[in-house]
């Protein structure tokens, strides 16, 4: 389904979509307020952008540095060209451990690789441990936002789900009560897990260490109790130096949720004695995106979600309307690089207002890339309807007589056309828009009457 069709589905529940819109705007507002308490905020964004530019210009050698240093620290480094290879590596590690269960903390990359269904097919019990991710996993849904995975759900729905799955009291919608129930449920999973998987926020080339940020502490609960820690990392997550973390950790949480830093920022350098630490470096289309001069900057993304919270389209259409692992403005410039046909409507799901670029902590020119993708998609797929209307317009503007007649006709037609035709479901433009009142006469007629 296209983005507009999915969005229409989301908007059917008016009260919920209004709540979604307002809640995300509230998060955007928190980001604004906290950013204004840092006098050097704009300098930090510029630094982050320049560091990431440098990373992309030297990605190959930084990856080699990272690999060498990580191996020196006792980390086992794997490389995966795509999601399939990534998933197979995870399964091989599990099978080597004779292990049939895994606990995961938030990793958008494993969503991108469709790891969960692959492991489940091979008889592995997969448990997502971030509260929001556990909620959507129990509902057999993907996350609808990269930082707030269950933002599309109301507490009544979560209460009903937990009543069914975790045997909580029927009708108890208290978030503290529901969170406590999830704590008990997941603690049991943590205590039993032999293998834990996390994503990676930053990998440091200079030291071979990597950093994972959470507020819940679920990543740490998983990996420190398990015997084996697997970290899945997109190859663009590299940063050159340890001190660069100062810039990125100052920007990440403030941009994401308006808090000064996440409560747990864990730096993994070598495994605990007797344990294993694996890192999987995943390409899955990233090298191809790096080769696209106009779109390579999308790889600078640190996955804060600020562009989603600010986007007037995302807020009003919901994450699922994008049908892409990463939704919102950044997803709309990343996903067409992976599958242009499937994601062809996404770059059009934007007003090109530029708010996404304004809040991006690494200064990705998101709205300009949306515009560039529109051109790529139009070139590739063609657009029959628009092509025809442009040809028609071309004819009208060429002939003064045709222009005059068509103007008279349009003014008459807009007055005469029944509302049902203008605001017909087929006319997407008529949705949520009112036509202006048509003037009685054209400028030419007015001029002849008054000035000639």
């Amino acid at each position, binding site marked *: 389904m296209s983005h507009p069709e999915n969005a229409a589905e989301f908007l059917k529940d008016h009260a919920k979509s209004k709540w979604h819109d307002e809640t995300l705007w509230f998060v955007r507002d928190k980001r604004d307020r906290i950013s204004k308490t840092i006098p050097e905020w704009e*300098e930090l964004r510029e630094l982050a952008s320049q560091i990431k530019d440098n990373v992309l210009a030297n990605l190959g050698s930084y990856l080699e540095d990272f690999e060498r240093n990580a191996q020196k620290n006792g980390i086992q480094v794997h490389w995966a060209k795509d999601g399939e290879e990534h998933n197979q590596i995870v399964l091989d590690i599990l099978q080597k451990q004779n292990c049939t269960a895994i606990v995961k903390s938030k990793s958008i990359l494993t969503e991108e690789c469709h790891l969960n269904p692959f492991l489940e097919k091979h008889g592995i019990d997969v448990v997502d441990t971030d509260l929001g991710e556990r909620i959507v996993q129990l509902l057999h849904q993907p996350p609808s936002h990269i930082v707030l995975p269950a933002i599309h759900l109301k*507490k009544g729905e979560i209460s009903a789900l937990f009543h069914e799955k975790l045997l909580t009291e029927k009708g108890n919608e208290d978030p503290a009560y529901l969170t406590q129930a999830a704590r008990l449920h997941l603690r049991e999973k943590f205590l039993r897990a032999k293998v834990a998987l996390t994503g990676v926020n930053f990998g440091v080339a200079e030291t071979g260490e990597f950093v994972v940020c959470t507020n819940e502490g*679920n990543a740490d609960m998983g990996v420190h109790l398990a015997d084996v820690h697997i970290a899945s990392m997109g190859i663009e997550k590299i940063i050159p130096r340890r*001190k660069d973390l100062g*810039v990125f950790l100052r920007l990440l949480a403030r941009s994401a949720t308006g808090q000064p830093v996440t409560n747990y920022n864990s730096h993994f350098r070598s495994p605990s004695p007797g344990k294993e630490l694996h890192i999987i*470096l995943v390409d899955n289309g990233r*090298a191809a995106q790096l080769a696209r001069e106009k779109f390579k900057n999308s790889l600078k993304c640190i996955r804060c979600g600020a562009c989603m919270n600010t986007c007037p389209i995302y807020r009003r259409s919901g994450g699922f309307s994008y049908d892409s692992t990463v939704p919102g403005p950044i997803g709309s410039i990343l996903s067409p690089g992976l599958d242009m046909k499937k994601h062809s409507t996404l770059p059009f799901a934007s007003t090109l207002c530029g708010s996404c670029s304004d809040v991006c902590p690494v200064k990705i020119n998101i709205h300009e890339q949306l515009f560039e993708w529109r051109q790529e998609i139009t070139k590739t797929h063609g657009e029959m309807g628009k092509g025809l209307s442009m040809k028609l317009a071309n004819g009208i503007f060429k002939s003064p007589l045709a222009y005059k007649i068509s103007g008279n006709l349009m003014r008459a037609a807009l007055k005469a056309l029944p509302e049902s035709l203008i605001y017909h479901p087929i006319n997407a433009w008529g949705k949520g828009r009112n036509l202006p009142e048509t003037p009685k006469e054209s400028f030419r007629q007015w001029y002849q009457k008054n000035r000639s």
Partner: protein
Amino acid sequence: MSSRDNILTAIKGIPLEPKVLPEIPDFGVQGELTETFIQSILGNKGEVLSKVEFESWLPKAKFSKVISLSSHFPEASTLALPEDPHELEDLGLAILDGQFGVAENGAIWLEDSNLGLRALPFITEHLVIVLDRRNLVETMHQGYNRIADAVSGFGVFIAGPSKTADIEQSLVIGAHGAKSLRVVLI
């Protein structure tokens, strides 16, 4: 060719314009360091206690299982650190020394040498971190300057208790990790 070589060859075949790696200025914070740090911890839903306040709170809290690795409160332990972190399942309180704290956001740095077991500050029901007020730095930049080239298998900035807002954006303290953080400033 292996996937590693495939990926690296593909990347190295892309003509990329050189980009300079910028130097990072030493940004500071305005205001008094200790007060800024205290406000940051409170904002993160932690508490800040003096040594005297902590000493009066601890016996009243009546924890049956306490592990203290703090050099300031060695006598507070009621059990020894086990070898297997799973035995910490019902630990009531952990008391640890933090190396330094960051005023701008309340983040406190701890390494393997402070933690005993990496799971300790997460699995414990309540956490106390003891911090010398002379070990406060302004921002994360000074924080990483302070860590410099130190090598630890694991290091963590802890800035508050475990929290979540995944249910309708309502803030709930105590998701998976410690349900409270008390910082004792000495």
